[in-house]
């Protein structure tokens, strides 16, 4: 696993960059703030200039209003309400900061009387003059002795202002002084009353009026001609109300500076936001003085830049933008630096990886070929060079099809391009077969390949890689294993498993194509004779020779297999029964013609052949094999060296088939202990014989209905299907059990021997001796009491095993009798070799010996031979007394038969004793 080590920036570089960036950002923020402040200051100055101009204009307008009114008074004969009201309304409407316009008439006592009369005549009988300021009403009589300055007009006439009508101003010294100053300067005068009169606006501007149409030029004349005063009340908040753009928070202060330089503050705006102002930011200030007569009015404007003007967001934005730009530049610089470092490291790592890859490719056991997208070779590793038999320099840039002929292993089909071949197999999800690569040396190499695409970063295919593995050895081993799995090691023919596979295919073919085929089941006759006589090596050689003979007789398309032991199977494709029988006969013939030589011995070999027609109506493989087996054994039963074709209604087949039906019943009877033992006594014909009597155990199979199954029926079936060993063991075990009981009850008066029949299969069972020994011990039986009867045929058929078994039994004390002597081979040569002590003469010679002289001769001859061999003889099937006499005369030692005693239930031994 590759661990990518990321290049990092040192801490000192990071700190320096951070601090530097912070300083730059702060500087930018400060500059932006300073610029905003300066801009706010400029705007403040601009706006205050506008304000100053506006205030100046408004004050001038107020003065102009006074001048207008004065002009009007000079132009009219009588200054009355009808004249003043419209123009006053218009002036107040035009200049909202003028809250009222009054005319104060300087009246002489007669004029005062006239004024009072007029007012009272106008419906106000109680109309009176009012004092001004702090004067008391009792000073008013002065007005009737000297001049008074009475409010005779006011606009608007409202409940609030109406009380000024008839009010005397002249009585107030301060006001009077202000009027004199206005007269003196012939200009306006400002007044700010500190009177507690609630209905009077304390801020006033006035101009005097004079008698005549022209304002007197000299002061003295103006003083003499003074006729009244026009007085405006001014609303300073309204005067300082501007419809300006949002701007700095402004605070106004108005002060009147009189001719003596005394300053009187007349108005201050209230600003409730002062507490929120930052002292650090400072204030913006502007001051302007306006001249009104001999007075000045000073306007002080103090401003605090509002948040919008200072535009903190813009400052913040500039700082953020700067920070972002710095971050971006730093990131780019750092990234470039890091990228350069990482690129260098990556290149180094890449080189290392490439070296590793090269070493790996050089080291691995598989051949690796890489191509470009057009399948031109771009690289091969050393193993691939070896496999291809060419060096990289020889094939670089060439197409792989030009330099490496590939073909499929199974079909031998040429594969032009292994890349596309394997890719196609991958896409179709088929398992590609191995390819065979023709090496320039001529050697063919089985290879297993995998193909992958080479892609670039974005996933586009830029080439392919082919990994080849030399699987020649594995392929050969696999082939060998496959061969071994399907072939018989001895003969080289197909084995039973493969034969059955082929048979299945043939059966399926027959069903689908309705075609006919044939199966020949070949079983060699007397093959054991060769084995027993000359040993297994000889038998094996015989089998090899026969395999070659059979193979030679068949077509290539047909199948010859060894099914096991001395059994062969032949499958004939597309063959009717007649033709199959001809082939079988030919095979039988060639086998029969073969003379097998071994150690100077020559054997005639024969075979029994069962033939089965393979048709579509055969259900299963087992049915087919059973039919062939039946046909073959039928052929054997028919005398061996025979060909027998399976026919469903064949009697022989039916018989054989019926035997097969007994198989499960016998097994069930053994399992359920259905068999019964009977005994038939063999009596001594001579004096002083030992033993004096012999009891032969015989097997019976009683049925539920009281009948019995004849041993002649089920014994052949048991022999055919290899069940006799089990039956014999049952007999041995049950006989021993009974014998133990008998001898446990009493001691027989006469010497006694118990005889038990053993089949050829049991004699050939190498484990039988051990079984019997164990049973003798189990039932505590003296071996000398036991005699086993074997037939000549069975002994000879399993001669070597039988010889070994007999000798083992003799060793422990058991005896042997040769049963049915004279009916089989009657080979006296075997008598010399078989270590038996009793010889049972076949009953067919005994039963009629009284009538048949040949039988008497045969019995006498056998008796002579036995005597010569020191064997005792038993004559069976004795059915009358005359035969007994003859036997006794001949010298036969024992006799057995219905005349002497019919078989009795074995349990009777307990009673008889």
């Amino acid at each position, binding site marked *: 696993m590759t661990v990518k080590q990321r290049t990092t920036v040192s801490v000192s570089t990071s700190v320096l960059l951070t601090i530097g960036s912070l300083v730059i950002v702060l500087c930018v923020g400060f500059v932006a703030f300073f610029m905003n402040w300066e801009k706010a200051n400029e705007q403040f100055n601009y706006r205050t200039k506008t304000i100053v101009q506006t205030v100046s204009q408004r004050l001038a307008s107020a003065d102009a209003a006074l001048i207008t009114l004065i002009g009007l008074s000079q132009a009219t004969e009588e200054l009355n309400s009808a004249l003043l009201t419209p123009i006053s309304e218009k002036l107040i409407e035009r200049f909202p900061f003028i809250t009222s316009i009054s005319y104060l008439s300087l009246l002489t006592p007669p004029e005062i009387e006239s004024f009072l009369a007029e007012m009272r005549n106008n419906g*106000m009988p109680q109309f009176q003059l009012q004092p001004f300021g702090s004067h008391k009403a009792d000073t008013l009589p002065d007005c009737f002795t000297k001049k008074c300055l009475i409010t005779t007009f006011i606009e608007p006439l409202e409940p609030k202002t109406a009380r000024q009508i008839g009010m005397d101003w002249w009585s107030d010294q301060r006001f009077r002084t202000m009027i004199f100053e206005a007269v003196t300067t012939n200009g306006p005068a400002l007044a700010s009353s500190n009177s507690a009169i609630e209905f009077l606006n304390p801020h006033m501007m006035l101009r005097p009026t004079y008698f005549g149409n022209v304002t007197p030029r000299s002061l003295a004349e103006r003083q003499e001609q003074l006729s009244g005063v026009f007085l405006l009340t001014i609303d300073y908040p309204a005067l300082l109300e501007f419809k300006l753009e949002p701007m700095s928070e402004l605070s106004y202060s108005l002060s009147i500076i009189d001719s003596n330089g005394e300053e009187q503050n007349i108005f201050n705006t209230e600003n409730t936001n002062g507490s929120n102002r930052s002292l650090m930011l400072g204030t913006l200030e502007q001051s302007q003085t306006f001249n009104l007569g001999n007075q000045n009015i000073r306007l002080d404007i103090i401003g605090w830049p509002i948040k919008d003007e200072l535009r903190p967001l813009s400052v913040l934005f500039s700082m953020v933008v700067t920070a972002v730009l710095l971050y971006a530049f730093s990131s780019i610089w750092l990234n470039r630096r890091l990228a350069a470092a990482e690129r260098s490291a990556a290149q180094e790592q890449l080189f290392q990886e490439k070296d590793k890859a090269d070493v790996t490719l050089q080291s691995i056991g598989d051949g690796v070929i890489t191509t470009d997208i057009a399948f031109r070779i771009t690289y091969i590793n050393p193993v691939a060079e070896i496999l291809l038999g060419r060096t990289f320099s020889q094939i670089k840039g060439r197409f792989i099809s030009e330099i490496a002929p590939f073909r499929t292993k199974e079909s031998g089909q040429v594969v032009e391009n292994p890349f596309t071949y394997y890719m196609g197999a991958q896409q179709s999800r088929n398992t590609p077969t191995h390819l065979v690569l023709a090496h320039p040396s001529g050697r063919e190499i089985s290879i297993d390949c995998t193909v992958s695409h080479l892609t670039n970063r974005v996933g586009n295919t830029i080439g392919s890689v082919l990994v080849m593995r030399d699987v020649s050895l594995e392929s050969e081993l696999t082939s060998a294993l496959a061969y071994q799995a399907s072939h018989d090691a001895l003969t080289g023919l197909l084995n039973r498993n493969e034969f059955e596979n082929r048979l299945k295919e043939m059966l399926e073919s027959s069903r689908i194509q309705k075609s006919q085929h044939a199966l020949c089941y070949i079983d060699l006759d007397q093959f054991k004779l060769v084995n027993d006589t000359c040993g297994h090596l000889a038998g094996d050689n015989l089998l090899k020779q026969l395999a070659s003979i059979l193979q030679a007789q068949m077509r290539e398309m047909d199948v010859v297999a060894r099914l096991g032991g001395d059994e062969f199977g032949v499958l004939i494709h597309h063959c009717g029964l007649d033709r199959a029988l001809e082939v079988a006969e030919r095979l039988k013939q060639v086998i029969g013609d073969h003379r097998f030589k071994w150690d100077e011995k020559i054997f005639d070999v024969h075979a029994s052949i069962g033939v089965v027609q393979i048709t579509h109506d055969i259900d299963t493989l087992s049915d087919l094999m059973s039919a062939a087996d039946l046909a073959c054994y039928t052929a054997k039963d028919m005398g061996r060296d025979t060909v027998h074709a399976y026919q469903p209604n064949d009697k022989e087949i039916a018989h054989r088939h019926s035997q097969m039906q007994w198989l499960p019943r016998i097994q069930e009877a053994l399992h359920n202990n259905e068999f019964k033992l009977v005994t038939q006594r063999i009596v001594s014909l001579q004096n002083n014989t030992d033993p004096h009597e012999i009891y032969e155990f015989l097997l019976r199979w009683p049925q539920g209905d009281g009948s019995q199954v004849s041993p002649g029926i089920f014994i052949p079936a048991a022999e055919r299907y290899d069940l006799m060993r089990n039956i014999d063991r049952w007999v041995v075990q049950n006989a021993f059990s009974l014998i133990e009981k008998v001898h446990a009850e009493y001691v027989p008066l006469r010497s006694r021997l118990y005889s038990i029949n053993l089949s050829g299969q049991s004699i050939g069972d190498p484990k039988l001796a051990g079984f019997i020994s164990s049973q003798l011990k189990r039932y505590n039986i003296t071996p000398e009491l036991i005699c086993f009867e074997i037939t000549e045929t069975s002994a000879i058929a399993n001669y070597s095993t039988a010889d070994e078994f007999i000798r083992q039994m003799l060793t422990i004390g058991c005896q042997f009798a040769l049963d049915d002597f004279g009916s089989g081979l009657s080979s006296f040569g075997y008598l010399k070799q078989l270590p038996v002590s009793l010889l049972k003469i076949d009953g067919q010679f005994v039963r009629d010996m009284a009538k048949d002289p040949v039988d008497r001769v045969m019995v006498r001859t056998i008796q002579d031979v036995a005597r010569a061999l020191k064997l005792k003889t038993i004559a069976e099937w004795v059915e009358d007394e005359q035969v007994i006499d003859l036997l006794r005369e001949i010298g036969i030692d024992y006799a057995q038969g219905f005349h002497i005693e019919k078989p009795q239930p074995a349990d009777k031994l307990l009673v008889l004793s």
Partner: protein
Amino acid sequence: MSRTVKSWARHGLSLLLLITLLGPTLTLAADRCLYISSYHQGYAWSDGVERGIRNTLGERCELRQLDMDTKRNKGDAYIQQIVEKTKHLIEEWQPNVIITSDDNAAKYLIQAHYKNAKIPFVFCGVNWTISEYGFPYSNVTGIIEVAPLKPMLEQAARLSSHSLYSAYYIGADTLTEKKNFSRIQAAAAELGITLEKRLVSNMADWKKAYLDAQNQRYIVLGSHSGISDWNAKEMAQFTADRGQIVSVTNHDWMMPFTLLGFTKIPEEHGEWAAKAAIAILDGTSPIDIPIVSNRKWDLWLNPILLEKSAIKLPRKLTRKAKKVTTQP
């Protein structure tokens, strides 16, 4: 739940209950203004006064109006009945301030029943003087209706023959007209003119008086209100056909029959009365609001009469005066 939370919950519920209970009370506590008109709606003067009141009051208080309709119902019984009705309304509705217009309300209601009472009154449209009602009271202020007599008489004198020294006053034979005549007569006397009255009760007498006046220096026309058979269209035609001397009036509704009008402005009374009412609602005592008289008037000219007569008016007058454009 903690004690603090419980306490807050209890206070919250109490506040909610208080708001629920006081909600209707607060609504009821809105200022109520009652306007009592001596006359009826449709009467030009009263409509003008009402217009001024309503425009000025706006939404300042809840305004209810009661028209005593004493112009058309002059019987004592009716007056008694309407006064009782008005009193009942005042007691039932309990207004914060009452505005009255014209003399009958001042006379029959304020003077008779609410002199120096707690409930404040603002009168307007009271002709000429308040002395006959004994104003001011502690609970009463208002604006007196005075006609621009002096300008009217001076203009009439300037435009008429200076060789004549007598003039006629023609009006309905009503108390108001008699009162007006007295005032105008006094004013004319100051200008050296003897003013004679011709107060009539029907249109024929009015015509006769008008024709008789044609040899006077000028005619002052009072109101026809009180002349039962007054036919405006006919009289307009009559005066146009027969008017040969200067005629003046203080009533704008007399302009179809008059050459020059010097008319009062009823809205001025309504506006002033409403402003005074607002000041009272704002806490000013009525006694602190001086009684004033109106001072606005307007100048009207009947061009039809001018055209049919041989009268020559100075250019400045014809330029300034409003022209009567509608005829009955």
